[in-house]
């Protein structure tokens, strides 16, 4: 059964009651919240996601509720609850949905060391995955949102999960996070994409989330072989340039963008080095999304 099978009233009742068992990729999150914007966001953006009926096990037990103190009458806030403890400071109440997204990313990235986890967007075509690690502001999410509307399958817009035993990229399809100007860019680029209500004045500015393509959600158990590592950089009016980059330096840059490379020790080094070895590595500068799509469409799988 999918989230879309529930009426808004039933969804709200589950979230307020014993919780909603939401499956995203390899993980099950049990979510509880009485906050309407959380129910609204999940209803709209997670419509195609399967619910784990009759499952007794959840990977993450999550709650989003206002703190129980006097401040709630003056300045309402929201707390992300991870199984009875609050890992973060509260945020303003109307940022509850973004906080759910960020909090769930935190749950995965700090507890799932069965994977090498890289802060990167991952998309797949013909069985090969492109991994786009990049610092904030590089236009990674914008490019990811555009590509997944043009034939690439979304694996994740934030977390590349590389499986230990075979180096495969494991999908974690979730709503794609868009910031500031890129919200409008994607609305114009693909008017049929569903983007939820904007949330202003967050730490990252204005944020909104794009509903992941249905195909990406349905194929969430299909892994892909890393084929390319591409560092995107958006620059106003820049020409579209795809330039090969040396592998050693790429390894260092990816390591720096990984959450748990250091934790994994020698295993992490082998995984990362094997992945880099098997991938073609590039720097990609762009300003025009259509041209970017063309360049990505022309990517050839790496020589074996």
């Amino acid at each position, binding site marked *: 059964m999918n989230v879309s099978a529930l009426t808004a009233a039933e969804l709200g009742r589950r979230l307020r009651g014993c919780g909603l068992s939401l499956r995203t990729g390899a993980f099950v999150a049990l979510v509880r919240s009485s906050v309407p914007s959380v129910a609204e966001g999940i209803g709209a953006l997670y419509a195609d996601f399967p619910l784990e009926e009759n499952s007794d096990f959840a990977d993450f037990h999550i709650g989003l509720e206002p703190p129980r103190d006097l401040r709630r009458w003056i300045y309402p806030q929201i707390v992300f609850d991870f199984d009875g403890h609050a*890992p973060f400071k509260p945020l303003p109440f109307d940022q509850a949905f973004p906080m759910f997204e960020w909090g769930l*990313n935190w749950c995965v990235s*700090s507890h799932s060391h069965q994977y090498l986890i890289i802060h990167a967007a991952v998309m797949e075509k013909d069985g090969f995955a492109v991994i786009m690690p990049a610092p904030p502001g590089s236009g990674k999410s914008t490019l990811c949102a555009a590509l997944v509307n043009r034939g690439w399958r979304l694996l994740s817009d934030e977390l590349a999960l590389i499986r230990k035993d075979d180096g495969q990229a494991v999908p974690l399809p979730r709503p794609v996070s868009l910031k500031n100007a890129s919200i409008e860019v994607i609305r114009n680029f693909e008017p049929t994409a569903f983007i939820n209500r904007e949330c202003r004045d*967050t730490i990252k500015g204005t944020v909104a989330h794009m509903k992941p393509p249905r195909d990406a959600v349905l194929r969430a158990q299909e892994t892909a072989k890393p084929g390319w590592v591409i560092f995107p950089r958006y620059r106003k009016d820049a020409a579209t340039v795809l330039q090969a980059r040396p592998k050693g330096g790429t390894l260092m840059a990816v390591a720096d963008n*990984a959450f748990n490379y250091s934790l994994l020790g020698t295993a992490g080094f082998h995984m990362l*080095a094997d992945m880099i070895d098997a991938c073609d590595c590039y720097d990609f500068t762009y300003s025009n999304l259509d041209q970017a799509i063309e360049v990505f469409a022309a990517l050839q799988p790496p020589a074996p």
Partner: protein
Amino acid sequence: MQEKNRNHEIGMAAPGQLPGDAPDSESRRKFGKAGLAVGSAVILTVASRPVLANYGAMCKTPSGFISGNVSQHGNPPPSQGLTPGYWKNHYGTGDWPSPYKCGTLKGTRCSNWDSWNNDGTRVCTDYTGGVFRCKSYCSSYATYTVSSYSKKTGYKTTTQPYSLMQMLWMGGSMDQYEFGAHMCAALLNAQHGYTDCLSVQAVKDMWNECDQKGYYEPTAGVKWYPQDCVAYLKSTMS
């Protein structure tokens, strides 16, 4: 030696690309002597991230965690200062933290302490704005003499106070163990807020005690002579 090497594993992209093998002409070209002298052999380091300190300790904001600086996992960066080499080569407007002034160059290039006018912040507290006490052990950092000759007055020597920037550039026997250079860098680091563990006052105390007694006492009965102070200050610099 075989024994020792057992731990080490060598992987390579393809046979023949190992730099230990005879190089092809292309890599020999890249290896031109000029290339050798440039920079450190260690181009870049990705340091092991702390796991002992507060593992699972909570970061302040979820967005800062997930999309901010992943390298720091939301923790404040460790306090690390900059080296004397940095400070002596950064003398643009706003490079030095106020109220310290680096002063001006005599010409266009700097090669030693004498390339600088002494119009920046003075070393010795005997002069307006001066920072450190230079009465005893550190008196050589206070002043230098300039001789001039003119037909009218003959040879004449005047005493000039050193500036912090001049001290940074001293080197050699003028600045044994580079004590002066490191104290100056530590002072600028502290003033800039780069070193949590070392305040401006603590830097001044260290110098002033060295001036008075020839050593600094970090804890009761322990003596740090100038070379020890330098070793300590180096540990606060990246």
